[in-house]
């Protein structure tokens, strides 16, 4: 099957990290939270530096020298951590962007997360720029003059900013402005943008797994000790520093501007931003029809509300006069059409209304629960092997229908989390020897929580649970992407072998029971 090369490259990278970190600690699954963690490091180290920093043209450089050399063991390490965590954040942000893009998670209902992520990059970069400015060394001078040139090239300010940085012109006023921006203004805007960025998703994780956070922190501390961050010579506006050790994560625009021009640098940065902004609509992607609530089958239990990954469901007072207190409403504008809510609803029970059309409290018009039940029934009936396995897959992971044969049949849902646990029992009851759920890779559900909820429902941690009486030996959960055909086949083979053993034992037991009866 054809998988686009960018996605293939991403999946390979992800696999490599799965091998080295395992699926729980895989940094590719925690890039957003890792960035948050780096921000905490930056915040704490920044507060410490602030204690010793003097925000004036004449005091800044000396105070940073003190931080770096006199008190190298704490303040110096803090300075290095502050710098390196900021650099690391650029790496995690770019990987985060790449991941969301490569895995197609930027279009349709996700446009909001995508578009609200982009201004964050601008803000983070300018935050780094004002940070380098505060040191007031030769690099700061370069950055100050470069920034002034960039601003001067815009038709906004009538007087020349650059002339502020001529010999003898520079005042503390300017310095205090930059200090205010770096210490207060920009961080506040950043927190607002981050809040906005995760507004449309529920159960947002802020912290990465402890092991990953520890590893990352130790790496940064080690780097800070091996290569402490240092300043250039003090700023001197009567001369131009000829050699600069630039931080290319933050300051790459300036050499480009020297090489090209201010105008072209603006043009390039703006063009990249605009192109990225428009990506979700090139071409536009239509999400399926939104989930629909059927109050006749809803008791207001709120399970769907708890499980919706995209804040599309809200709870309100009952409106239909039924004896229940609450009901749920879906906001179609926010609905991703993932179907997870259908899997949460206790009414999505295939053993109900077995003779008529199955109705549930919240259903997907594109693939209603009744249809899921009949597909399951048909798939089970169509198999004729020794150990028949029903594969339940989704639209975003591995295509289960690729493995269809006499003893294997796939049913594709929108998301594995759409599967009501009772449907598994139903399939076994209808004659499947085993049920294998093949969602996205573990911890990397396209709809965020599908495979997580499946795990928790099956282990009894989260409602609706898979009942104890369902034979766990006949149920397998194994995630995989489009490129994981081989490992899924191997897992299926091993599973089938176990089922054959189980079947044999059942036959033996039945036979021995028969003989003892005789």
């Amino acid at each position: 099957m054809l998988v686009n090369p960018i996605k293939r490259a991403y999946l390979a990278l992800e696999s490599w990290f799965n091998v080295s970190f395992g699926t729980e600690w895989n940094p590719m699954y925690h890039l957003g939270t890792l960035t948050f963690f780096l921000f905490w490091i930056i915040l704490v180290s920044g507060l410490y530096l602030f204690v010793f920093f003097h925000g004036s043209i004449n005091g800044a450089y000396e105070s940073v020298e003190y931080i770096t050399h006199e008190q190298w063991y704490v303040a110096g390490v803090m300075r290095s951590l502050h710098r390196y965590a900021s650099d690391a954040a650029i790496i995690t942000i770019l990987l985060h962007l790449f991941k969301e893009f490569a895995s197609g998670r930027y279009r349709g209902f996700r446009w909001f997360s995508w578009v609200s992520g982009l201004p964050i990059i601008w803000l983070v970069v300018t935050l780094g720029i004002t940070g380098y400015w505060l040191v007031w060394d030769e690099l700061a001078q370069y950055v100050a003059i470069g920034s002034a040139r960039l601003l001067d090239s815009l038709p906004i300010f009538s007087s020349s900013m650059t002339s502020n940085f001529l010999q003898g012109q520079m005042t503390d006023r300017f310095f205090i402005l930059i200090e205010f921006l770096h210490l207060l203004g920009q961080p506040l805007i950043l927190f607002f943008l981050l809040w906005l960025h995760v507004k449309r998703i529920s159960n947002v994780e802020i912290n990465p797994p402890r092991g990953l956070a520890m590893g990352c922190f130790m790496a940064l501390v080690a780097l800070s000790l091996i290569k402490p961050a240092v300043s250039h010579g003090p700023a001197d506006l009567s001369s131009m520093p000829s050699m600069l050790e630039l931080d290319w994560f933050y300051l790459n625009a300036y050499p480009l501007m020297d090489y090209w021009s201010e105008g072209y640098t603006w043009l390039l940065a703006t063009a990249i931003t605009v192109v990225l902004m428009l990506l979700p609509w090139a071409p536009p992607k239509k999400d399926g029809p939104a989930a629909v609530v059927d109050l006749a089958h809803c008791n207001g239990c709120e399970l769907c509300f708890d499980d919706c990954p995209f804040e599309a469901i809200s709870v309100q007072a009952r409106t239909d006069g039924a004896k229940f207190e609450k009901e749920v409403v879906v906001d179609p504008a926010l609905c991703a059409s993932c179907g997870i809510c259908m899997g949460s609803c206790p009414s999505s029970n295939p053993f109900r209304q077995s003779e008529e059309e199955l109705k549930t409290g919240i259903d997907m018009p594109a693939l209603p629960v009744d249809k899921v039940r009949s597909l399951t029934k048909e798939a089970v009936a169509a198999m004729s092997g020794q150990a028949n396995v029903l594969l339940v897959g989704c639209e975003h992971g591995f295509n289960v229908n690729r493995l269809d044969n006499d003893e294997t049949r796939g049913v594709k849902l929108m998301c594995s989390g759409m599967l009501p646990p009772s449907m598994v029992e139903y399939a076994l009851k209808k004659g499947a020897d085993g049920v294998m759920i093949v969602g996205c890779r573990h911890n990397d559900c396209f709809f965020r929580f599908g495979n997580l909820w499946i795990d928790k429902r099956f282990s009894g941690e989260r409602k609706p649970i898979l009942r104890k009486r369902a034979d766990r030996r006949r149920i397998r959960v194994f995630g995989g992407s489009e490129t994981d055909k081989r490992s899924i086949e191997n897992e299926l083979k091993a599973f089938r072998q176990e089922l054959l053993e189980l079947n044999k034992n059942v036959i033996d037991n039945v036979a021995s029971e028969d003989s003892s009866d005789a």
Partner: protein
Amino acid sequence: MLRAKIRQMLSLNNKVIRYILQAINYSLFMALIWYFSTSPVYRQLADDEAILTISFAHAGEIKEPCVKRTQKELMALPPNMRAPMNCSRERSPIVIEMMFDGEPLYSETAEAPGLYNDSGVDIYHSVKVSAGKHHLAIRMDDSVLKEGFTHVFEQDVDIKPAQILLVGFNPSKGFIVR
């Protein structure tokens, strides 16, 4: 049998192998930050280069001379507007030319900004030059009424490598080199 044994050994070592792989990943991550936080070194100026910056604010002369209003003209105006002289507010553009060792280095004609072209002009220009002894000549014309350049300046300069040689202007003192 043998296979099972190997598999068992591998799974025992699995944790160790994983930590080694993680260490490799973290090292790569550190190496990336290590390198790009300061390298490659960016060279702004060659060893024998310096910067010449000209920067000043200056308002050009009023474009037209004031004319005395005739009695008739005065009467046509509302009483509170009857100023005896009629002065236009429009200012002349600033024309500036800079020669470096006889070669043109920079020239500009800056129109006076403002709604009525009545404001002062900010001149700012910065160029790379070679360090050493040079001859600098600057001519400026700030009035359309006067024939030729209104300000002329010449000086021998000795520029140190990496120096920013700053040329300013002051209406009373003319051009100044710092």
